[in-house]
């Protein structure tokens, strides 16, 4: 297992180099002089020259990339053009908020999505199944930011039960996490339904039933346990969607996370922060996929990576 984790971590290196290349050339794709863009329209020629030297833009492109890689390896993501604070500090300050939202949303999505999929698979082609299927279809088609706005209208404006935005208490977490969860609950329900339909028709499920076990024991201990691998995979993959959704959800609820940071930085054309935040999002996505691979072993003892 340890060897597997090391191998898996090493296999991340080419992807990380790819990401770094993508982000490096992103800044070079900017129309005009990147130093001018970073310095702003009002900057003097001396300021532009200083930024050019700081960024190493006066050196050959391969040297620039190698120096960029070396800075990345030291977790030096540069300084914010707006606040002049190190980007890594800005990211660290916001990361816990995004993680709190993501974990709350994914837990909520599993809490509702998995039972909905199981119930749907246990009564296929009945009204319950059609209801879950239709709800899933609506869930995957719904703009997450619109749902967030509608929840604010109902629960904050009309009923006045929950705060419309901000942070500070557990009540503040409810609406943003429900909004974000809606983004992934539909996918989890659909995947659970289709895998449960397969496992419920397997021989071991028939055997469990013929032994006289109660239906809920058959479903939970035999069918669901064997359906968990694809479900966990889809939960891991949906984490990426969730990060994308976090950008919109955090904007709706003025939630001070990484998503809000990236939008503010784009609006202010603060490229070092944009690059840094996107890099961290990419890293998080890769790490979640690694965690999913490790979870496989814990869920299914038949899987051996050694």
């Amino acid at each position, binding site marked *: 297992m340890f060897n597997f984790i090391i191998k898996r971590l090493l296999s991340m290196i*080419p*992807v990380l*180099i*790819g*990401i770094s*290349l*993508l*982000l490096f050339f*992103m*800044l070079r*794709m*900017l129309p005009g002089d990147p130093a001018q863009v970073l310095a702003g329209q009002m900057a003097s020629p001396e300021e532009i020259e200083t930024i050019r030297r700081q960024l190493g833009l006066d050196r050959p492109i391969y040297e620039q990339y190698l120096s960029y890689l070396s800075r990345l390896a030291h977790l030096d993501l540069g300084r914010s053009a707006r606040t002049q604070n190190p980007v890594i500090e800005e990211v660290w300050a916001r990361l816990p908020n995004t993680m709190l939202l993501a974990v709350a949303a994914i837990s909520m999505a599993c809490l509702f999505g998995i039972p909905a999929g199981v119930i749907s698979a246990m009564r296929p082609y009945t009204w319950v199944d059609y209801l879950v299927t239709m709800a899933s*279809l*609506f869930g*995957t*088609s*719904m*703009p*997450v*930011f*619109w*749902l967030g*706005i*509608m929840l*604010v*209208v109902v629960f904050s*404006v009309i009923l006045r039960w929950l705060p*419309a935005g901000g942070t500070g208490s557990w009540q503040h977490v409810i609406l943003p996490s429900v909004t974000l969860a809606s983004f992934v609950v539909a996918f989890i329900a659909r995947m659970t339904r289709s895998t449960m339909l397969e496992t419920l028709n397997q021989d071991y499920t028939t055997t469990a039933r013929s032994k006289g076990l109660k239906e809920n024991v058959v479903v939970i201990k035999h069918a669901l346990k064997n359906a968990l691998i694809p479900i966990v995979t889809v939960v891991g993959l949906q984490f*990426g*969607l969730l*990060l*994308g*959704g976090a*950008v*919109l959800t955090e*904007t*709706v609820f003025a939630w001070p996370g990484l998503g809000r940071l*990236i*939008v503010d*930085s*784009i*609006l202010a*054309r603060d*490229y070092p922060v*944009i690059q840094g935040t*996107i890099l961290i*999002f*990419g890293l998080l*996505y*890769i790490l979640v996929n690694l965690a999913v691979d490790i979870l496989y072993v814990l869920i299914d003892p038949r899987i051996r990576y050694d």
Partner: protein
Amino acid sequence: MTEATEKGVCRPPHEFSTDTGLRRFCLKLRRNKAALAGGVMLLIYLAAALLAPLLVQGDAAAPNLSMALETPSPQEPLGTDELGRSILGRIIYGARVSLLIAVGVVAVGLFIGVPLGLVSGYFGGKIDFGIQRATDAMLAFPGFLLALALVSVLGAGIKNTMISIGISMVPQYIRLVRACVLTVRAEVYVEAARAAGTRDGMILWRHILPNVMVPITVQTSLSMGTAILFAAGLGFLGIGVQPPTPEWGTMLGSARNYLFHAPHVATFPGLAILLAVLSFNLLGDGLRDALDPRFKL
């Protein structure tokens, strides 16, 4: 695996080129009520987009402050926005923008992704390795974030929104087409063409491309729904289509400031997005089921 391949659509579909295959496909699609509903909804959107100048009186972008934030009434069935513009009129004109973006996005995705997928799958070796590693790096970012990153560089506007979202969809097309080419290139007719001395370019164009069109069609329908969602998201954040162009996401973005006084301003553009995306998803699911050999009549 991409959505279009997950149910076995990715296979040599030469049977669909025959009349019987095509008839069976049409029959399956017609019997799928959900897909039919999606198709009808899509036709309504298309008609609204094409006939917008006839359906909407006056300029949908011109402000009329004396009518600001009016609630729905017989004169204005969906009410008016903060500048007194008809929400219904702007939703109808918004259909033009959203459908245009959806078409533009898939055009970019197809134009870049399909040739790269064809070359990667057909030639293999170092070319395949290079294209696939680049695809891996792009797939390390969730699609919306990639589009967000690109639009931050290219700038706001309809054209840049199309390009950014289109590029974010390229990896999906590359993977889909490559997977299909790997299946098709082993077919006898490809070997026969190669043995007859046909050039690689001609084999790709005449023999392989027509046989990967089915999964591409399914993926295109599903991608259009995603494109509308992404474009609305960018518009909502203020970095996509810019006001006063009527775009559903942009409308929602400005409606956010009036939630306490006029929640109807935010309700209807969101419904328009939901139904448009739903119609593409229903049609895409229907196409996939109709093209799936395991789904019998």
